[in-house]
Structure formats: structure tokens, C-alpha cells
């Protein structure tokens, strides 16, 4: 179980680092105040400063309301969450397969893997869902709308 206090601390620190990063990067761009266009760096610099200011505000507000925020919980380690994390892995693998073997071969592996993860054990159901989905995508996007999908690396 995660709680909002911890989450806010983490978010504040990450955003603070992002803000500092934006300011550092923006400082290498042109900034000139008081002479027309303030330059390409001014706007991002301002955003970076605002990100830093509001990260600090979030940190302070979290410290001030820590009891209330500690009571506000969300799930991050239940079996349901773990199923999502496994899915993250499957999706990353799918992206790799998608890049090398193209959309149709990738989806042919991804849809059954996802359905299996969702506790579908009927081979007929898995096969039908996969075939109908891919056929519909092929007809709608490939044929009717003429939208190209990732092709296998050897066909590019």
C-alpha cells in the first residue's frame, strides 16, 4: 500500500530535479531582457523556475498536511498491481517484437499473452479474439483507411 505523503515527497523531489534541469538547459539558450523578444531561453527558463517553486510548495504542503496525506492510500503491491507490472514487461517485449517483426506478428503474440495474463484459458476464445481483432485492423486501417502499420525489419 502506498500513501499520498510518500508519493508527494517523491514527486516533489523528481519535479525539483526536472525544474533544475530545465533551468540549466535553458540557461545555455539566448536570454535578453528589456530589448524586444526575450529570446528562445526566456520562456523555458521561466517554466523551470515555476516548476522549482511549485515543487517546493508541494513539499511544504505535504509536510504541513502529513497526517491527512498519510491516511490517503493507494495500491501498488497487490496481486492486481503485480499483474499490471508483468504486463509492463510484456508491453516492452511487444515493442521490441513490433520493431523487428512488425505489427501483425507482434500482435499475434501480444494479444494471446495478454489474454493469458488476464486468466483466459480457453484456446478458442484467445484464437478468435486475436484473429478477429487483427482481421478488423487489417480491413479497417490497412485496406479501407490505407494506413500503414509497422512492417517486419526484413520487409522495410
Amino acid at each position, binding site marked *: 500500500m502506498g500513501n499520498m505523503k510518500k*508519493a*508527494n515527497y517523491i514527486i516533489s523531489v523528481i519535479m525539483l530535479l526536472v525544474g533544475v534541469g530545465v533551468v540549466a538547459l535553458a540557461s545555455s539558450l539566448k536570454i535578453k531582457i528589456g530589448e*524586444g523578444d526575450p529570446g528562445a531561453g526566456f520562456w523555458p527558463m521561466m517554466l523551470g523556475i515555476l516548476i522549482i517553486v511549485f515543487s517546493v510548495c508541494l513539499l511544504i504542503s505535504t509536510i504541513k498536511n502529513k497526517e491527512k496525506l498519510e491516511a490517503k492510500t493507494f495500491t501498488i503491491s497487490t496481486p492486481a498491481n503485480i499483474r499490471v507490472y508483468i504486463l509492463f514487461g510484456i508491453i*516492452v517485449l511487444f515493442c521490441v517484437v513490433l520493431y523487428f517483426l512488425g505489427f501483425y506478428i507482434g500482435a499475434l503474440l501480444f494479444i494471446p499473452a495478454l489474454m493469458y495474463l488476464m486468466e483466459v484459458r480457453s484456446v478458442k476464445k484467445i484464437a478468435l479474439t486475436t484473429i478477429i481483432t487483427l482481421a478488423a485492423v487489417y480491413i479497417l486501417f490497412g485496406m479501407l483507411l490505407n*494506413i500503414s502499420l509497422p512492417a517486419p525489419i526484413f520487409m522495410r
Partner: protein
Amino acid sequence: MSDILVALGNVFTIGNLAGLIFGTGAGILIGAMPGLSVNMGIALLFPLTFAFQGVGGILMLLGIYCGAIYGGSISAILLKTPGTPASVATTLDGYPMATKLKQPGRALGLSTFGSTFGGIFSAICLIIFSPMLASVALKFSKPEYFALAVFGLSIITSVSSGSILKGLLGGFIGLFIATIGIDNLSGSVRFAFGSTYLLGGISFVPILIGLFAFSQVLQSVEDCYKEKYVKTDVKLTRVFPTWEDLKRVFVTLLRSSIIGTFIGCVPGTGGDIASFVSYDQAKRWSKYKDNFGNGEPEGIVAPEAGNNSVSGGAMIPMLTLGIPGDGATAIMLGALMVQGMQPGPLLFKEQASSVYAIFIGLLLANAVMGLMGFSLIRVFVKVVNIPKEILIPVIFTLTFVGAYAYNNSMNDVFVMVFCGFLGYFMNKTEFSMSAIVIGIILGALAETNFRGALTMSDGNFSIFLTHPICAVFLALAAISLLSPVLGPVVKKLLGKDKAKQETGV
């Protein structure tokens, strides 16, 4: 007049009408599926519109938008599970009518009638009022445009229901993302890190699909863990409302449509607020107050007319000023920009035929929605029974197709997946995703006009205060941004005054 004729010619082609009808049907299906929101519907189906040239894609988008808002009422009435937040109020009387009174057809018919009436009413208001507002806004120059963008950004406070600070941080991140790539004014390259992909800026489409569709499906995978599949058996007889029902609800329909259109015009509101306010007012003025909550017809048409009339209302500031009314219109705004339109006062001058096409399209989309609602409701009802283990893989597949289809780029797919993973955790930590999208959409408008205004004034920042309209919009933005902080303080002070008056101390 010639622009209207051109628009009519553009809209009434077989391909464009097919796109509008397909978009409306697909929108209704998405809206009807429990757990799929209007935002997700637009994000998911938006890539389909790339296949259409010019007005065709925009018409399809309008169909998706209207259809998805209406579709939410189907699962709200049949399952007590609103497809969209805007349909929550519909469950209050829709579900009792469908279950206790055993009249699901009557409830769905009333909601269809209410949605269609509200949608058409607001489209007419859009046609009447937006050219007036646009003609006023044509006098705006760069400082006013900057102030408008800031005002648009200020709705972040109302779309960030969980934490306003995190919403604002999200908005700044969105604004920062919009700066990546070649700077339009100076030509310098910003934050590209040598990547050719980043040189052109990060596309809005993969971010949209990742945050609104991909992350939501990940959440659905979590939510349906060990969930038991329950099939709802619905038998519909008559779906068109009776004459008695129509007479009974007519005044409520009209009142709710006015409320919804007005609420839609106010940036930062949305369908959920409109439906609850309409429901509340219907109850207050009804002769059948006691019947509310037990399947009262007025209790069904009020929220439905209210939330559907938001569509036209929210388009008034969106089309004329280029500021979104809520999360869904923010996505619509971005989608129109991707389709080659730049909503704002100049749109009425430079792309008048496209504006008229939107007007005609919105009217048609609502009419098609009503026709589909009455004729195909038996098909749409079946959607609520699709098991999640089939629906989820289909949606996942569509997200990948959509992200790739925009630019034929695998990098867009990677961005979408990254945003999806991030969105899953953002959802848990009350980090508003709409805020990021609003930041990305309004980023270029805000920066270009901010720098343009300073160029006009030779770098003098007082230009933002000396232009009266600009100053008013900036003041409104400040009020909107500070309202979550000041609101409770004002309430507290008023409460104290009231207590003092009552006690005489």
C-alpha cells in the same frame, strides 16, 4: 454566403458523411462501455480521422465527441455504471426506471431524446453566438492572445480534482514539452539533444493516446482482477418516448439545455457539473419532486440534455478564443490543430468555410446520434456485455495502431508507451493528466504571443497591464488560479459574518 455553400458542399459528400456516421457510432460504442471515458474515446479513435482529408476528419471527430457523451448514459441506465462521469446523474433515475419499473426502453428513449435535444440546442447557440464573440475577439493583438492562453491554462485548477499543485506542475511540464524542437521565432533548437525525432517537437497524439487511453486500459487490467463477469439481459420494447412523456419533460429539457450550454461556455467546467446542476434544477422546479430517485422521466432528460448541451457550449470559447472549456474540449482543440485548424478569432476570417462545416457537422452529429440512438439502441446495449478480457486486448491493439499511424514512427509508439506507464502511476497519485495536455496544446500559443507582445513593447512588461482586455483576462486567470485557495477563506469569512448576524454579536 459563399462560405456556407462551400461548407455544405464539403460536408455533404459520401465519404465525409460516412466518416461522421462512423465516428458517431464508434463514439456511442466507446461511451457505452463502462470505464471508457469521453477523453479516452476521442484519444483512441482520433487516429482514424487521419485517413480523412480536410473537413472529413473534423466531422468524424465531432461525431466521436457527441456520440461518446451520449453513449455514457446507456451503461448508466442499464448497469448503474456510468460510461462517463457526465452520466453519473443519469443513474439516479435511469437505473430505477430500468430495473424497479422494468422500463429500460423508456429510460433509454428518454435519455436519447434528452441528449439529442440538448446537443442540437447547443449547436444552434454555437451558430448564433460564436460569430458575435469572434468579431469582438478579432480586435485582439498579441498581448490579448497571450492573456487568453493564460486564461485557458487557468482551467487546470478545475480539471485537477485531486491536487491543484500537482495539476499546475503538470501544466508547466506540458508547457515545457511544447518548447521542445525548433523555436519558431528565432530558429534555435531547444532541448533536442541531437535527436532528429525531437527536432520537430514531441507529437501531441502519442502523448494523448498514452495518457488518456493506454494508462486507462492498464488501470482496467488492475480493476478487473478476479472480477466476476455478470451478463445483463436487457429486453427492449418501445424506445421512442410517448407523447405524454414528452409533454411532461419539455420544460425540463429546455431549462437543462440552457443550463448545459451556459456551463459549457465557462472554461473549467464540463459535462459532469452541467448534468448535476440540471438534475438539481429539474428536481427543484418539478411537480413530481417526490418521484425523483424512483425513475422520474424528468430526472433522466435533465442530466442528459445538460451534459450533451455542453458540447456546443464548450465549443463557443474553443472556436472563437482558442481556449478549451474542459478536458474533452482541450483534446478536441488539439485534435483540430493536428487536423490543420487553428481555433481562435482568425479562424472565422481565414477559414470561414471550415467554421461553417463545424457548425453543420455538430448539428448533423447530434441528429445522427439521435437517429442511431432510436434505431440501433438494441445493438449498443449489447456492448455493455462485452467481457473485459476481450475488450482490453482490442483497445491495447488500437492504441498501438493509433500511435504509429499518426507519423508512421516507432518513436511515437515508444512515447505513447512511456506516457501510458507514467499515466498509470499519475492516476494513482492524483496527478492530473488533462493539465499536461492543456499545457502542451496552449504552450505554443502562450509563448509565441508572450514574446510577440514583448517585441511590440521593446521588452517592456507593462504592455500586459496597459492593454485593458489583456489585463482583464490576466485578472480572471489569476482569480481562477487562486480560487481554490481563496474560496475556502471567503466561505469562512462569510460564515463568520452570518454567524455574527444570527447571534447578534
